Structure formats: C-alpha cells, structure tokens
C-alpha cells in the first residue's frame, strides 16, 4: 500500500525530514513504492540469521 497514510509513506516522510531531504510531491509516490519494493526484497534476507562470527564491518575481499 502506497500513499500518504501507509506505513512506508509515513516512514519516508519522517526519514526524509531527519536527513534534510525534501521529496517533491511529484516524486513521493514513486519513492514510497521503491522503499516498499526494497522492503519486500529484503524480507527473506532479514529472516536469515547471521552468526556472531560473521564480520560486522563492511569490509570485503573476493
């Protein structure tokens, strides 16, 4: 559910205010949809527990 009253819409408005980002009205629905899409993709990843041995710092070597 997108729009002014959705959970993601409220989150987008609040988070944008906190980082000083003014989302133009013409872009707002698409921004909210993109956050929703990311959240849907992210669900199975979030459900994957990571052991404490998994490094915390975003440092990577292939």
């Amino acid at each position: 559910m997108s729009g002014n009253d959705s959970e993601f819409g409220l989150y987008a408005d609040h988070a944008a205010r906190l980082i000083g980002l003014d989302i133009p009205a013409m872009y707002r629905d698409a921004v909210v949809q993109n956050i929703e899409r990311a959240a849907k993709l992210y669900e199975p990843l979030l459900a994957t527990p990571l052991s404490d041995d998994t490094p915390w710092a975003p440092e990577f070597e292939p």
Partner: protein
Amino acid sequence: MSSEAVRTADATGLAELIRSRQVSATEVATQALERIRQKDPELNCFTAVLEESALQHADAVDRLIAMGKDPGPLAGVPIGAKNLFDVAGVATTAGSRIHAERPPADKDATAVARLKGAGAVLLGVLNMDEYALGFVTENAHYGATHNPHDPDRVAGGSSGGSAAAVAARLVPVSLGTDTNGSVRVPAAFCGIFGLKPTYGRISRAGVFPLADSLDHVGPFARSVRDLALCFDLMVDANPRESTVSKLSQGIDGLRIAVLDDPYFRQGSAESFAPVTKAANALGVTRVVTVPEADKARAAAFIITMCEGGHLHLPDLRTRPQDFDPATVTRFMAGALLPASWYQHAQRFRAVFRERMRELFRSVDVILAPATPCLAIRIGQPTITLGGQEVPSRPNLGVFTQPFSFVGLPIVAAPVFQSGSLPLGVQIIGPAYKEGSVLRVSAHLEQLGVAKAHAPQSLAE
C-alpha cells in the same frame, strides 16, 4: 585494404594489419569516424565523438610505426569508453545533466590510459543510464541507445552505448562498468562478449562510482582474444600471467557445471536456452545449485540503493529536478533505507562468498543464464518474472546480481539467437580465475557456438 575488412576485424587482428602497414591507423580512424557519422544518429551510442584528438593520436601511431617502433598490441585500434570514465579534456557526465556542468577531466582514467598506452585510439565517450543506475540505457538527457539487432529494443545497460557500439561495428572494443550486471546484460542483449573481472582487479581510478562496494570495470569485444588482451593490459599482467596465452589450452582439466535451480528458471522460455546450448556443446552434464541466490540479489540491491542514494544526497537535496526522473526516486529511496538493512546486507556478503567458495571447491566454472528475457522494447515498463509482472528497469539483472555481489569473474558470451535477437550465457569462475572463464569462452568460440553475429538491421 577494404573498408569491410577493417570494419569486421577484431582488435587483435586490426592491430596486426596496422603494425604490418597493410592499413594505416589514420585510415582506420577515418573510416570508423565516417561510420559513426552514418550509423550513430540511428543508434545513439556516443555522447561525444573526439574526432580531432582521435586523428592526432592515430597519426602519432602511424609515425611510430614509420620509425620502426611498436605502438603496442592495440596499435591504432579504435575504442570507446562509457561516459563515466575520465577522459582528459572531456566532461565526465556519468549520463547526468548535473555532472555535465563540471569542468572537463584533467587526465584519463587508469583503464583508459592503459589501453591508449597500448596504442588504442579513443574515438569518443558512450551513452549510459544516468549514474549507471539501470539496465536499459534509456536516458532522459541523452536519449535511448538502440539495439543494433532491433532498433526498437534497448541495448541493455547501464553500459548500453559501449555494447551497442561494439555490436554495430563502430569500434571493436569498448569499456564499461558492472555493478550489478551492467557489462553482462548489454553484452547479452547486443550479442557480443563482455568481461566482468574479479572485484578490484582493474583499477577504478578516474571512474565515477555507482556503489563503491560493488563497482567493476570491464571490456566489451567481438572476440574472446580481445577481451583477454584488454584484461591483460588493464591489470598490467606480466607475460607469465597473461590470459591471452592461456586461451589455446582448451578446457582440459576444467570441471564445468550448469547452474540450474528454480531461481535461474524464473525467466522467459528462451532465457535458459543459451545455458543448454553451451552445456551441450561442452559436453557438460553436471548440475549444481546456488542456495540463497535470491538473498544475494536482494543484498546487492540494498547496498546499491544505499550507497548510490547517499553518494547523490547533496544533489538530491538541492536540485532533484535535474536528475533523470527514472533514477531520482530510486536514489531518494536508497538514501532513506535503514542503516541496519545495509549492515545486514554487507554481512550477508561474507556468508554468500563462503557459499560460492564452497561450490568452487568441486567445480572450476559454472554456466548460468545472463538475462531473464530477450532485449525488451524501448519504453517497455514491465517484464514477467516467475509468473509475475514486475518493473523492467530494476529486474533485468536478476541473474547477474548474485555473482557480482561477491566479485566473481564472469564472461557474458553470445551463444544463442531467437530470430534476430541474441542472448548470452554467463561463464562464471572463482575469484581471480579470469583465465578459466576466458578459456571456456574461447573454446565455445572455437566450436562456433559463441559468436558475435553482425546485426541484420545494419547490413550495408
């Protein structure tokens, strides 16, 4: 020397013709510039053509040869570079209006300098999705790049101009970047070879980033030996480590498997055909799976959105109207995602890297589909994935993202035609084993299975 022979030669062959004085670098550059004048208005590969500097450089190559000196293995070979590589004297637009306002670069990106140092002649800079975010090269500021095999269709992206220019025989070699599939998707759609090397192997100095954690530099070409040559030059390989010298080794000793699980079967009916065709040609029967490819793809998506969003946050705050409408809302969303998501995605990267390392203990190379469909029509908003209609722009890289996520070396090879449209296979190896994936690619090329067919729509 006929113009046809010059136009159809690969970079290695063309350099040989120039070094042996069968044709001059100036003649080659002049012919290529003329072809760009004829064909590029239809294709829109180039955002800037550097005629004057190209002809000066070609003349310098000819003078070196006349003096009995060797300009290098790319002597007089015309090349192009995606417009996010710094090129001295040219604005690095990164496909944006905002960066077009910046002063021209004062020196070449390292990758560009390496190829020019080997004698290549840079003809121009090439179109892309704005800030490399996308798989279609439909750019609101610079227009769409058209697929040479069907001008109504996309060239793929984000390095679409680079791929289309090679496919259309405007240049034999070009440079692109690949964060989530931006070399492999356009290579597959345009029916040419593309190499995404191991993360970090080719310098990104002077290359504008999309997501620093995932960005790679890679070449496009119409032959495997050209890919290998460009790779060797850009990593500054010593002769004993040269991948070119390994191409003749064939596939003896390489354990090759097909990657086949439901995740890689969610595309259109023809999307898996390149894998089957390559596997049959190689006599491969072994099948492997990659657990959690969907999560790897999701993590790559989150990292790209977050890093891209934060990179552009100052401009998103002050001048959102100057972005491409297709990217601005994705960058804004990325800047708003929770830090905990980003952290979790980065941690999962280490987990998935171990999964792939484990897989590569029992195989040396795996084959996987490159794209979930044929090149889509320009402006096509959705594709079908797993029976569901989803937005096309973020989803054309669904098969490429899991592997760039952990930085593996991959060749996208053109092995299949559906009507006039090509499709590619991903040939994937463990980290730092570019030699293995190039050997398999060369073997498929030698068998006649992998081939960069000339686009029918551009027949003379």
